[in-house]
């Protein structure tokens, strides 16, 4: 995983609540065996009409939002399936952070392992961000702060280990494999 220390970007806003993983990437894009080109399926049925043409009303198809690295979504983002294809597709499309009031547990866990930062903000900040699409935000992952333009910064919660891994680009598998001695001892003790 590449390190993610800072994100400076304008936002794209997708205000709908409870955006589920089948919207983020429909199941028919899950027959892949790799991660290549996975963003093709991102928000597919919202991004494209049934004839395969881009839907001009969808925010990420609009020129001013297409390259936003920060997505502001409605309440409770990422509910549903455990498919890691959801954060893979967002990341592959160029999104580095999603801001909402709540994230589904498995989505959050998957996102953090792929350099995609889920940021939980309170209702007041969320409402402001929803009302100001295109706002320029700065995210400091190490300090866990989010600020708009040169305004005051607010602190967000991020699980400390996941934060460390994001900032340093640490591979969690490597960390786990480093605990081989303890794992083997645990297995032996249970026999």
């Amino acid at each position, binding site marked *: 995983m590449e390190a993610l220390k800072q994100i400076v970007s304008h936002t794209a806003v997708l205000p709908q609540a*409870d955006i*589920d993983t*089948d919207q983020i990437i429909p199941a028919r894009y899950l027959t892949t*065996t790799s991660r290549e080109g996975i963003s093709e399926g991102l928000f597919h*049925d919202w991004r494209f009409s049934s004839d395969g043409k881009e839907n001009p009303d969808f925010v990420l198809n609009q020129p001013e939002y297409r390259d936003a690295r920060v997505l502001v979504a409605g309440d409770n983002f990422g509910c549903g399936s455990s498919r890691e294809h959801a954060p893979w597709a967002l990341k592959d499309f160029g999104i580095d952070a999603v801001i909402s009031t709540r994230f589904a547990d498995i989505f959050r866990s998957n996102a953090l392992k792929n350099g995609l930062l889920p940021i939980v903000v309170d209702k007041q900040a969320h409402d402001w961000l929803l009302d100001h699409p295109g706002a320029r935000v700065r995210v400091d992952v190490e300090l866990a702060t989010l600020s708009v333009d040169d305004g005051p910064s607010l602190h967000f919660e991020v699980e400390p*280990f996941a934060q*460390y891994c994001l900032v340093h680009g640490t591979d969690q*598998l490597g960390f786990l*494999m480093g605990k081989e001695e303890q794992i083997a001892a645990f297995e032996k003790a249970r026999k």
Partner: protein
Amino acid sequence: MTGKSMLDKIWESHVVVPETQQNPAILYIDLHLIHEVTTPQAFSLLREKGIPVRRPDLTLATLDHSIPTRPELVARGYEGMAPAAGKQVRQMVENCEEFGIPLRGPGNADQGIVHVIGPELGASQPGKTIVCGDSHTATHGALGALAFGIGTTEVGHVLATQCLLQRKPRSMGITIDGPLSAGVTAKDVVLFIISKIGVSGGTGHVIEYRGSTITGLSMDERMTICNMSIEAGARAGMDAPDQVTFDYLKGRPMAPAGADWDKAVEQWKALSSDPDARFDREVLIDAAEIPPMITFGTNPGAGIGIRREIPEPVGAASRKALEYMGLKPGRPLYGQPVDIVFIGSCTNSRLGDLQAAAEIMKGRKVKSGVRMLVVPGSNKIKLAAEELGLDRVFTDAGAEWHEAGCSMCLGMNGDIAAPGQYVVSTSNRNFEGRQGPGARTLLASPVTAAASAIAGAVADPRSFLIDGGA
């Protein structure tokens, strides 16, 4: 000191390295269930790094999501699959061979939906930690296990180390007391719960289902409830193991036997939450309040009693949902014409589900113009149902009788609905496009689904019960 919950007990006995402020706990996993959709990238990583699978003996593999279930397609093997699905299935076969994991693939007597075969083989047991790259893993919690869904990166972690990095979740007790009314099933119970606490009501929590309603249910029914814990946002769902659990497990191929069995049962009996255990959140439900349920929106929380009117939408999301569903507030779904009825999925494809549906279908016909699919959850269930003649009940009524798999629960194996079609479905998700682009899913129980197939419209199962119902 307060007592321990079942979650506390299972958690504590699996901690390899305790949690600190900086680091999550390292949690040992007793059973890793794998399927073709969420594992290929994990195996690729292992291959690339030259890492073996640490415990193939604790890994149970099957094929379920992307395989076809229509008998004529299944008979054609790879030829019957879409090219991408065929490639994925081939990859799974190769991965299992290369890494030494026995695969319960098509043709294997044990093949079936991953959450159906784990309990069926007796691999899912009380007190175990069980994970799978699938959000419906909570199903196995019905046997008194801590079972939860993980992503592909974590699948790689478990394959390589048999462990996961985890923070301990919070606990939620949901107590349901009293007998269920006629025509009300476990599916209605869980749809009712989700309609009360919402699709994110359980986020960060493990739910323990308690009370006389739960202890009065069969294993199949308990699995239906635990299965949909994720639809309330919960990390997992679980039931205390009891005599129903032990009777279910005894004699199953992977369950303990002989002296080991007696020892295991003693240990399992100690897993229940202590009487003075405290939950971070508690919810109480009176079973008498639960009617046959159906969903009208595009998330599983949008459920109502089958005779109740669709509520006025609140906010943009629920307006958009009703628009997608082509439904109007102020009217009940009862009587809404349907195009397809699907009985299957890890939620409702067990023998008990098929028996309940067959009870209603017996001697009746699927309404002309309605397509009905009945898809057993495993090869064993298919055989058991055929021995009971259930397949004939369904096919005589005009329904399709399929081979085991996930089928129309999710549109990735060829079993899909057309845009705009209404599907009464016993599966778990009514998300936009879940059963095919533009498809409109109405989640319900197997008996409501069967009644709706006969009526050709959303129907109240109570009208079809032998005694006329409540």
